[in-house]
């Protein structure tokens, strides 16, 4: 189902509650009564088209068919992506950690085995943080630079070299190892840790992991289907113009 401007925000959340962190990151907090999405965006000064694009991208995986990229602002996309990073660092990763700790403290099976899981997640976390840092320190600044150059129609020498050597396309592949680790961790918890009397705490870890994965998929969807194609077009135009 598509989320439209006339829909009540509350109905959109009832439709899929996984949208909750998404609307938070876009600047909307709970307690919005019966306001429609349009009214709320007006009130908060949020670009409604951008809001609808992000929310629908989250729900509908085949966003290619439904989105026009022409009017999307690169700056806004970057702000949103940074907000999702913040959310991973401050909320989702700590949530997984807390649940793993709870699992270790209250488990009836060998603690050593759970320590393996904890260490594995530590390793994952380090790679994940390094990846986010790389995006914030290299990719996003580059993206904004290309966007700026495209706006004023002027290409400096060092940006030209960056476009030639490391175009945005070269970065789309990079997510893979981090995704694999998350995938492995789920299978270890589901299939390979020994059976325990009660799975509740293990379920809790898995729930948090699935939620993280779902959000990360959306994050890379926005990067690969919105940001990368937009910047790619700009790169080509800049190269042609010089």
């Amino acid at each position, binding site marked *: 189902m598509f989320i439209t401007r006339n829909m009540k925000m509350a109905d959109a959340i009832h439709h899929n509650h996984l949208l909750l962190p998404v609307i938070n990151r876009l600047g909307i907090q709970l307690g919005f009564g019966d306001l429609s999405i349009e009214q709320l965006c007006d009130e908060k000064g949020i670009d409604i088209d951008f809001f609808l694009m992000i929310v629908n991208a989250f729900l509908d995986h085949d966003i290619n068919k439904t989105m026009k990229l022409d009017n999307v602002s690169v700056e806004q996309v970057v702000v949103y992506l940074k907000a999702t990073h913040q959310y991973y660092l401050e909320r989702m990763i700590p949530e997984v950690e807390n649940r793993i700790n709870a699992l270790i403290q209250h488990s009836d099976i060998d603690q050593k085995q759970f320590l*393996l899981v904890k260490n*594995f997640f530590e390793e994952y976390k380090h790679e994940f943080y390094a990846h986010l840092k790389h995006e914030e320190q290299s990719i996003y600044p580059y993206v904004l630079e290309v966007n700026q150059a495209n706006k004023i129609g002027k290409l400096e020498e060092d940006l030209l070299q960056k476009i030639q050597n490391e175009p945005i396309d070269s970065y789309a592949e990079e997510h893979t190892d981090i995704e694999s680790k998350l995938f*492995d961790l789920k*299978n*270890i918890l589901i299939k390979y840790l*020994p059976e325990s009397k009660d799975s509740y705490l293990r379920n809790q870890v898995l729930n948090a992991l699935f939620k993280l994965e779902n959000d990360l998929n959306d994050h890379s969807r926005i990067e690969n289907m919105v940001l990368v194609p937009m910047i790619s077009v700009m790169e080509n135009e800049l190269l042609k113009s010089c």
Partner: protein
Amino acid sequence: MIILALPTYVVRKGLESIFRELCTQKKIHSTANIQELNQYIKDSETRLVYAHSSFIPDLQTNYHRKDSCKIVRVIDEKPKELLEEAFQSDILYLNDDEQSIIKNIKRNIALTEKANEGSSEESELSEREKDIVREIALGKTNKEIADNLFISAHTVITHRKNITKKLGIKTVSGLTIYAILNKLIQMEET
């Protein structure tokens, strides 16, 4: 990946929803566009294509691909003289009865899943594969594993692919945990 290429919107969506009911494969794409269909056919992930008969003349199948991709023709009406004919899995008649349509789809899904995963039924590791997991968990490179086990590096890579398919674990750290939990190695060895 399964591709459904049909010009009629309702039929396309209908067939897609039948597929989603019948298989766990998440990558099902539908299209009404011949160029898009030809793109999909080139993609090595595509294993099964249902293409409407009107697309067949423009289908580009003269590409080189290592693994097979089955193409099923979708035909609007089943000719009357064929009514009692034996079951054919490479043609789907849209006006066929529910049972035959489901049988056709199930058969083809089963075929692609087999082609996809080799012996996907077995998830037990073979003794050789256990040797490899042990070596990986000890941090050996493909070259070192090949030397230690007297096999070629190429064989090591093939084994690693099969291990990942069987276990659902892709990374070295993940395989290490698997090896410890299943006592292929001792924790002290890592």
